[in-house]
């Protein structure tokens, strides 16, 4: 059964529609990614699931009930929410633990043990994030909602955080993860919903999203002698051929490389600087969200 069910969710602020008929379900134990440019409705959706906002339309349930009724089963890590400057890590942990019937201490696993006496205002960005995760998990929630948790972290800290999320999942927690790092979604998420203009533009596994893109494989090379582009275009696996200066870029399906190199060999042309690119989730994302300028970090 779905642990999170969002049906036909709608939310507007004044005249601006933030979210419009969004529906999805998250299964227990899943890591579900929410992707999309700023202003696409990710945060509003997640806030409705956290019980912070009331939907204008549609319904949101967590564990079959409205989120506001099951707050102790939901752990939330919010984008840009802080603690009092002078509150120490230890105090924050014990304060948040006191809100829940069955608190769990994640400080050890999150590497906070050495910083228990440090005041929040003096923590580094990475430690603040880790504390924030520890507080989200303090009540041993069934569902953890993590909003852009690795934004502002350096690559090493980001990878460390990823392994924490994997730990969280293996502890049986369902994770709703808002992110704008494709690498993060690709590495962690079982399924991803890509938001665009307040709606879900696509919902699939990361590899499923990639395979939706036409010309998922690209071969680039500089031919040693002129090549007939029409002949390349006529190959069964090719969807598109373009040139960039002397370079030829051939797009197509997975078996593209073999088809192209055989053709060149038959014509005794050498492919110099040959490179094969697989379309990444990044490309799929750009295509799904309408690309240019939509994203502004």
């Amino acid at each position, binding site marked *: 059964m779905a642990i999170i069910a969002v049906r036909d969710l709608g939310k507007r602020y004044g005249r601006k529609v933030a979210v419009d008929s969004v529906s999805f379900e998250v299964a227990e134990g899943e890591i579900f990614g929410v992707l999309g440019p700023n202003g696409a409705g990710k945060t509003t959706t997640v806030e409705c699931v956290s019980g*912070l906002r009331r939907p204008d339309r549609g319904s949101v349930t967590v564990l079959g009930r409205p989120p506001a009724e099951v707050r102790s089963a939901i752990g939330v890590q919010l984008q840009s*929410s802080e603690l009092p400057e*002078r509150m120490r890590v230890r*105090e924050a942990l014990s*304060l948040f633990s006191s809100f*829940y019937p069955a608190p769990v201490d994640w400080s050890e696993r999150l590497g906070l043990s050495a910083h228990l006496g440090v005041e929040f205002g003096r923590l580094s960005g990475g430690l603040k994030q880790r504390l924030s995760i520890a507080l989200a998990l303090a009540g041993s929630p069934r569902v953890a909602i993590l909003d852009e948790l690795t934004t502002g972290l350096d690559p090493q800290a980001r990878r460390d955080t990823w392994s924490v999320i994997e730990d969280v999942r293996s502890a049986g927690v369902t994770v709703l993860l808002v992110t704008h790092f494709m690498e993060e979604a690709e590495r962690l998420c079982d399924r991803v919903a890509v938001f665009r203009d307040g709606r879900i533009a696509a919902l699939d596994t990361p590899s499923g999203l990639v395979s939706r893109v036409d010309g998922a494989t690209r071969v680039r090379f500089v031919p040693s002698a002129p090549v007939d582009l029409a002949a390349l275009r006529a190959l069964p696996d090719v969807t598109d051929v373009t040139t960039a200066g002397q370079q030829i870029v051939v797009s197509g399906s997975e078996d593209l490389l073999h088809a192209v190199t055989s053709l060149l060999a038959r014509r005794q042309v050498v492919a110099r600087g040959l490179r094969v690119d697989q379309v990444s989730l990044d490309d799929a994302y750009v295509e799904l969200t309408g690309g240019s300028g939509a994203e502004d970090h």
Partner: protein
Amino acid sequence: MLKIIKVEARLFVRDRLNSLFAVLFPTLLLLVLGAVPALRTPAEEFGGLRFIDSYLSSLVVFTLGFIGLQRVPTVVATYREKGVLRRLSTTPMHPARLLAGQMVVNFVAAILSVLLTVVVAHLVFGVDLPHHPLGLAGAVVLGGAGTFALGLVIAALAPNARAAGGWATAVFMLLMFFGGVYLPRFMLPPAIQAIGSYAPPGVEALQQAWLGTAPDWRHLAIMGLVGLVAGTVAARTFRWE
């Protein structure tokens, strides 16, 4: 709830400059003023009292005003601005409890500060213990409630922590003026003195309870009313994020 009060109390104490200032400053000011012989001599202007006697209520006014209007609005507005209240909204605990804890801690600090002033005034300068202790307690509680509630209204309406601090300081200055903190009340025109009697934290009621016979119930009622109205406005208009 107890846990929240404990944590908030720790945070209060840890903010040394502010907490020491709030609790100790009125007493220090009393000691400094009392060190001047002329201010220790009974005089006509003070109705046969010494200056320091007539100034006691203004010291309490300062305490309540400083805590209620300098600390409360900035802390509350900062909690909102930094998303602390929003963060708590996602837990089973309502963020209103954090504000309640804040109020309790600040109120206790105000009471400690007043008690310290009473004790030092008595021991060092032989000032009478409050003539009407119950009346003084009532005046401190109601005057404090009125002042704190004004602070909360400011926190509720100000767009951000900086604005809250600015607005609160303006109100603080004004109330300190009416409360005879800058200029002793006998130097103020009668109209200003009258306003001071009715404006929180209620300098006249405090003075009457301490060295007069009993506070005027009308003054206390006005404080209570201000507290009630301002408290309601604050609760109605408060934004959690």
